[in-house]
């Protein structure tokens, strides 16, 4: 038995009756608040080096997203999500080229870091002279916006659906699970691609059709997982006790079952953010969704599709937005990977 396990097995809380030879483990406020299982998960997350790197990456991107207007200001009359164009020439221009038209204001950090008095295209321009640096910075906002909205929405839908299904059981459960089976037949990228294409003529080109499509075909996984967890919690004695004492169904579900079952699903949702951003970028890479010139990494990358044979020269139209996307997703995945380890039931008591 390792030291950590021994620690884990020491009874906690008020143990005066057990006598003085039993050593008590200090229990902090946070642990009391979260409960032992959830606290263990949280602790495991902060401890591993991989997840720390993940947190650093995600925080870094979050700061970029928050301070985007300070890093590079929008060029009026455009709103921030529209990438300014330096002219209309077709061929991409390399990094370091002087920015002539539609130049944003010079921010405070610019001279200190680059030592130059006027804007250059720090990462070059893409086809149609869209500034890549601008797109990368403001695309961070798009990534957070889409990732968070889609994840929260799919999570809520999944949890509500899964809880209802699990709690009522029997034929309701069976029917609801068959609907899930149907929705899960098509690979989610393909299904979202189709649905977004159907929606685009109805609501116009924007981030909306893709987000709606990703929500529509993204919640099923959460529903399955929370259903499983609820099914096991439903059988526990304290639920039976609540039933016997006459607590109403809805109250049992929302006050007693869901709070105890939700944590693993919540953690999975945070792992899902990276995937959502990947799918979103993939769809806009294929040309579905945002209008041309919207600050969005997938779209920046889609410009590269017309220059494949000359990517040797125009490497910067792939490398900068591509690696940004990779590091963003990597950040979320590192956190997610640590969560997977902590959540693995075989790892219980080892964190």
């Amino acid at each position, binding site marked *: 038995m390792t030291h950590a396990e021994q620690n884990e097995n020491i009874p906690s809380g008020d143990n005066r009756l057990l006598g003085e030879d039993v050593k008590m483990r200090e229990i902090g406020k946070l642990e009391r608040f979260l409960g032992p299982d959830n606290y263990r998960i949280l602790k495991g997350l902060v401890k591993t080096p991989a997840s720390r790197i993940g947190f650093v990456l995600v925080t870094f991107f979050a700061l970029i997203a928050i301070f985007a207007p300070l890093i590079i200001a929008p060029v009026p009359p455009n709103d921030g999500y529209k990438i300014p164009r330096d002219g209309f020439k077709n061929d991409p221009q390399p990094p370091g080229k002087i920015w002539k038209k539609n130049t944003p204001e010079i921010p405070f950090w610019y001279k200190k870091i680059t030592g130059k008095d006027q804007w250059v295209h720090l990462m070059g321009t893409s086809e149609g002279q869209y500034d890549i640096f601008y797109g990368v910075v403001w695309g961070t906002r798009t990534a957070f916006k889409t990732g968070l909205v889609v994840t929260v929405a799919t999570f809520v839908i999944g949890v509500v659906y899964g809880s209802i299904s699990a709690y009522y059981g029997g034929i309701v459960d069976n029917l609801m699970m068959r609907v899930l*089976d149907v929705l899960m*037949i098509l690979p989610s990228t393909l299904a979202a691609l189709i649905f977004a*294409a159907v929606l685009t*003529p109805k609501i116009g080109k924007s981030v909306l059709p893709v987000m709606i499509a990703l929500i529509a075909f993204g919640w099923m996984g959460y529903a399955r997982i929370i259903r499983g967890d609820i099914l096991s919690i439903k059988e526990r004695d304290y639920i039976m006790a609540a039933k016997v004492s006459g607590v109403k169904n809805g109250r049992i579900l929302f006050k007693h079952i869901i709070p105890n079952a939700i944590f693993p699903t919540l953690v999975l949702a945070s792992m899902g953010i990276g995937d959502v951003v990947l799918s979103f970028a*993939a769809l806009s890479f294929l040309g579905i969704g945002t209008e041309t010139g919207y600050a969005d990494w997938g779209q920046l990358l889609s410009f590269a599709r017309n220059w494949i044979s000359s990517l040797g020269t125009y490497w910067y139209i792939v490398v900068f937005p591509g690696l940004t996307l990779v590091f963003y997703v*990597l950040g979320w995945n590192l956190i997610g990977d640590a969560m997977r380890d902590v959540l693995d039931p075989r790892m219980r008591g080892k964190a």
Partner: protein
Amino acid sequence: MTTYIIRRLLLVPVLLVGVTILIFGMMQMLSPVERTALYLKDFPKNDKQIEGLIKRYGFDKPVYVQYWNWLMGVKNPVSGQREGGILHGDFGYSRSSSMPVGELISRRFPNTLDLTLWAMVPMISVGIWLGVQAAVHQNGWIDQSLRVFSIVGTSFPTFVFGLLVLMVFYAKLQWLPPGRLSSWAQGVVDSTQWRTYINILTIDSLLNRRFDIFWDALKHMILPIVTLSYINWAGFLRVTRSSMLETLRQDYVTTARAKGLSERDVIFGHARPNALLPVITMAGFSIVGLLGGVVITESVFNYPGIGSAAARAATSLDIVTMLGFAIFNGLILIVANLVVDIVYAFIDPRVRLS
């Protein structure tokens, strides 16, 4: 096991009806004029014609009648012939590709199958090999670096990875081109001396004894294969590793070791076969997933399979074509999932004997 298989079979009609209703529902979001592509090559021109067509194809009827028509087709009042009907394999007309959707699929699908079959080989074999290595050297440097490798792999979007390998191996080094065939090879394939056997290019070229064309076709597939493999290795690695670790902890492995078997025999002879059970299921599902999920890979490499056709239809908002693909994919996936589940039932003694 019989009950398991019967229950699994009973699910099939449910899924079939479900998927058709799902796609029919999306179809309902189109205007009747757009839906005429289900039956006609050209858009109707004037209001009167539109009205006639709406009547003729029953777009004014109740939804369930429309659903039935969509499945079974409509009788042409003049010629008495059946028009449309997805159950007859008639998915409508693809205006973005100027040919019937069914024909588009039958032209493109063999290419996708070709790519998928070839991609499976390195994907599964290397994925399992890596997973076993990681498990055997648990927590050693091999395991740690494979862990990094797999996390980076899952974080790489298919298209970014694809663009990067294209940049290096095509644009810089000029080794491996995108597309399907070089133009000289395409010329041979289109000529009369070429015999088509099963339409899968690598196999047909072998049967035609044209090894140069076989190599050319394979050369065009190397980058997509590498991309698909790299993206999928992480999953195989993870599943193999954890399953292998669990197996290595079991008593019979200890017994094998106690009997004095070499570590090699213990790992490859005793542990690995049992550890591969969950990997087999995963392999089945990922083949299935590949068939439907090659949309992005095919688009990046300009590979003429159904995935890239679907992407093109989506970009030009050719919904009838897209939904045709969706139905086709749905049918394939339902059957393929069924096969995987049943095969698994035969392999896994826990299911077989229950």
